[in-house]
């Protein structure tokens, strides 16, 4: 058992294990995503008030949920690399940042697309969208800080500190924005979505959320593999892989 964890600390083993996991996780993810989308789009009834445009929640909500969870993955990986000096945790953190940022962007984009037919505007400053925007800024800050350092080991440590600071701040930011929105909310229109959701809509949503978690993991693993290859580009095991790929 301990040897397994110990092996995770070595780049070629982590690369291989990630590859094995991807081999079965990728098909499952695709099936879940496609299945969930089909279920949500074709096999559920249109919403009472919003008609068919509500179906975007099958992408919007999972993206938002996983974008937030992804930040915690990144911050915890950063903490592990900082406190226990495990170098591979550094790789996880660096790989998670762009994936999480992309999901946050997808959530914002789909939120805007949802807004247009429903409320007539491309952008509304409601609590969730605003919080997601701030989350995107937090992600971009981590990515920018990483790129600014020449010494990549220092970059990893700095980003770990920044992600932890962000992690502490996220509940504060979310609560503040929630509160801010309730203060300034125009009395007539309520932008926040349904608080009660019909079970027939809930189950495909849950499936999509699970599918997005799996998608995050797949993207994370693929990114990690790429990062490992880049970091270890001068070692033997990478040269062997490059030679093998070159022959194909």
């Amino acid at each position: 058992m301990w040897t397994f964890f110990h092996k995770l600390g070595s780049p070629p083993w982590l690369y291989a294990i990630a590859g094995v996991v991807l081999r079965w996780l990728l098909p499952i993810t695709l099936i879940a995503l496609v299945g969930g989308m089909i279920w949500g789009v074709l096999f559920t009834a249109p919403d009472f008030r919003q008609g068919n445009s509500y179906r975007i929640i099958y992408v919007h909500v999972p993206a938002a949920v996983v974008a937030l969870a992804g930040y915690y993955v990144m911050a915890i990986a950063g903490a592990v690399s900082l406190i226990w000096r495990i170098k591979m945790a550094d790789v996880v953190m660096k790989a998670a940042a762009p994936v999480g940022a992309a999901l946050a962007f997808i959530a914002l984009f789909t939120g805007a697309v949802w807004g247009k037919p429903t409320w007539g505007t491309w952008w509304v400053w409601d609590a969730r969208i605003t919080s997601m925007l701030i989350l995107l800024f937090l992600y971009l800050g981590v990515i920018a800080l990483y790129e600014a350092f020449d010494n990549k080991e220092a970059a990893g440590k700095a980003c770990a500190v920044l992600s932890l600071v962000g992690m502490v701040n996220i509940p504060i930011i979310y609560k503040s924005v929630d509160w801010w929105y309730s203060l300034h909310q125009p009395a007539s229109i309520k932008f926040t979505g349904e608080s009660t959701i019909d079970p027939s809509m809930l189950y495909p949503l849950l499936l999509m959320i699970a599918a997005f978690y799996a998608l995050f993991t797949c993207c994370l693993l693929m990114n990690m593999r790429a990062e490992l290859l880049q970091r270890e580009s001068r070692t033997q095991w990478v040269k062997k892989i490059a030679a093998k790929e070159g022959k194909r």
Partner: protein
Amino acid sequence: MSLSTAGTPLLTAQSLGLVRGGRELFCELSVEVHGGQLWHIEGPNGAGKTSLLRILCGLSRYGFEGEVLRSVTPLYLGHQPAVKALLSPRENLQWHVSGEGLYRDERIDIALGRVGLCGYEDVPSHTLSAGQHRRVNLARLFLSSARLWLLDEPFTAIDQQGVNETQSLLASHVDGGGAVVMTSHQSLQVKCKVHTLSLRHGVIA
């Protein structure tokens, strides 16, 4: 010269290794520094002497292999003189951020006199030259009560008389039971035994 090697070493380095830019600067470097020893780290330019010194004093905490243990707080004089241009030399020493000690005026006067800055104690440091800044930094050696000194090129931009003064100071510090680890291009002309640490070959003498 009988070395006071009894007791714990002031500084222990075990199997230090450093790779920078694909080049291995040093590996499996181990050294024990006891009171009463003067260590000279030698190596060509860019060989990693400053990096080694930074690892030994604790500024570099990761990115290298091996372990460093210090049993005392060292005094470190690095490449930069740590002199604030807006403060006078006296104020720089009085308000020094190394947290070492609160020095009385007379001691500061004596120290600045010893480094050849008599009469310059209270002028703003931005009027002083780079060499004079380095001498203000060296004045700390006369004030400090730290047992272990880690010095990076302490003789840079100092004239010959200053170099002689400093070398005799190092010798007397070592005689008094302190230890010095330093890098220098120049060969040392000190009255005590000099231990040499080569980056490539480890402990030579």
